[in-house]
């Protein structure tokens, strides 16, 4: 196998990059190291920006064959590719031609198509919450019953009518939120942080290879 294809290369890069980020957090290493760390962050941004083209190519590779072969629902792919091209052209940073982020067509599409679509998708979560709550709030077990009771009390705390009927709902709701809920969340956070540290150790030492090509094999 060619040396540059060896799995050790990305592992070594991972370890070096991690140490460059970790060490200045704990130690004062001087301006030169801090500058190097800042440069490293810039590299990361440049690489990330370069990866944008990967996404664009991936989208076109998926949708153009679908349009050409008239696969099911190819019409939607046409709309996507058309919008992709329009946004790309009008968003190009060429001020001399009136293009860029402040171009009127770009602004119109962004403000009147993309933003409302995103807001719509976000707002339909309310309906998903209703259907999920219906399933979760069936007292089939002790845990589900506790969830049902706690959820109902918090609903009464947050809905204006709850505290209007009995102010005690506010106190109970606050206690549920600040004591059992907060302590559980903190326990999960501590466990998660420990898990991340150990995962980091495994990744830096090359034991965690699942995220590499074929598990590093």
């Amino acid at each position: 196998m060619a040396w540059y294809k060896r799995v050790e290369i990305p592992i070594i890069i991972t370890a070096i990059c991690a140490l460059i980020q970790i060490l200045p957090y704990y130690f004062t290493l001087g301006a030169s190291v801090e500058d190097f760390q800042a440069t490293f962050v810039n590299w990361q941004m440049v690489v990330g920006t370069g990866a944008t083209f990967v996404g664009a190519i991936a989208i076109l590779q998926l949708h153009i064959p679908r349009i050409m072969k008239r696969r099911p629902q190819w019409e939607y792919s046409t709309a996507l590719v058309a919008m992709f091209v329009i946004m790309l052209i009008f968003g190009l940073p060429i001020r001399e031609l009136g293009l860029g982020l402040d171009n009127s067509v770009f602004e119109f599409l962004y403000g009147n198509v993309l933003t409302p679509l995103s807001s719509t998708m976000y707002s339909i979560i309310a309906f998903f919450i209703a259907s999920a709550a219906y399933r979760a709030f069936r007292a089939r077990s002790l845990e589900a019953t506790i969830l049902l009771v706690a959820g109902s009390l918090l609903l009464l705390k947050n809905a204006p009518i709850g505290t209007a009927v009995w102010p005690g709902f506010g106190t109970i709701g606050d206690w549920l939120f600040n004591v059992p809920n907060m302590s559980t969340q903190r326990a999960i956070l501590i466990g998660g942080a420990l898990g991340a540290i150990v995962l980091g150790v495994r990744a830096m030492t090359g034991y965690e290879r699942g995220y590499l090509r074929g598990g590093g094999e």
Partner: protein
Amino acid sequence: MLQSGRVSGLIYLLIVAASALYFIKRGEKGNIPEIRRVSGLDAIEEAIGRATEMGRPVFCSHGISGLSDATYGPQTIAGLSVLNYVARLCARYATRVIVPVRQVSVYPIAREIVETAYKLEGKPEQFRPEDIVYLSGFQFGYSLGYMSLMERERAGANIMVGAYWAESLQLSETGARVGALQVSGTANTHQIPFFVVATDYTLIGEEIYAAGAYLSKDPAMVGSIVAQDIGKFIGIALIVLGVIVGLSGTNYIVKLLEM
């Protein structure tokens, strides 16, 4: 030399990291610790088997975060480790695996993982590059694409391990609606309740980070999980000690941790 206020954190980090290395070495020598079963991870094979029997594809996603963020990046790595396991099983059972991707920087990695899994199982011709789908960089564009893919392809299993935000409930509810057996996992505490109510199995917090080690069954990797427990014991001891010392009217523990 040492940054003020971060000494205790560094000591804690070094203890946990040293413990991880120690138990990795012990594991390599054959001293494999007994760890509890994680039903969510055990259920992945069941989910893929069920999807195979139904002739439906398996969906496997690794969250919507990239790899570079200090808080969420490890969750993506954990999700990719799970993807590696899922892809191997799907290749073995000749089941389609569809991977919806949001981050362009993760897309080539996901594609390489799945492609290599098929090669390692001796079925490179069954790899379908079009099933590693980059949907959108926008959160809800991604969510919408994921949901419609699940509806169109009638997902048989939906495995979601990684960092998720508001889209978690949309994805898991859609998975439930199409009858997919769902395994979810995230360390984003505000999304865990959504996964708990809408999916069949949920990995909570630290369980997702242990997933790679647990699924690989590699003795060294499994050994490293013990280090998490050591970190927890130290944390619990500090909390108990802090309460006792605090009740006695002093704040030595707080001062110690603020070092």
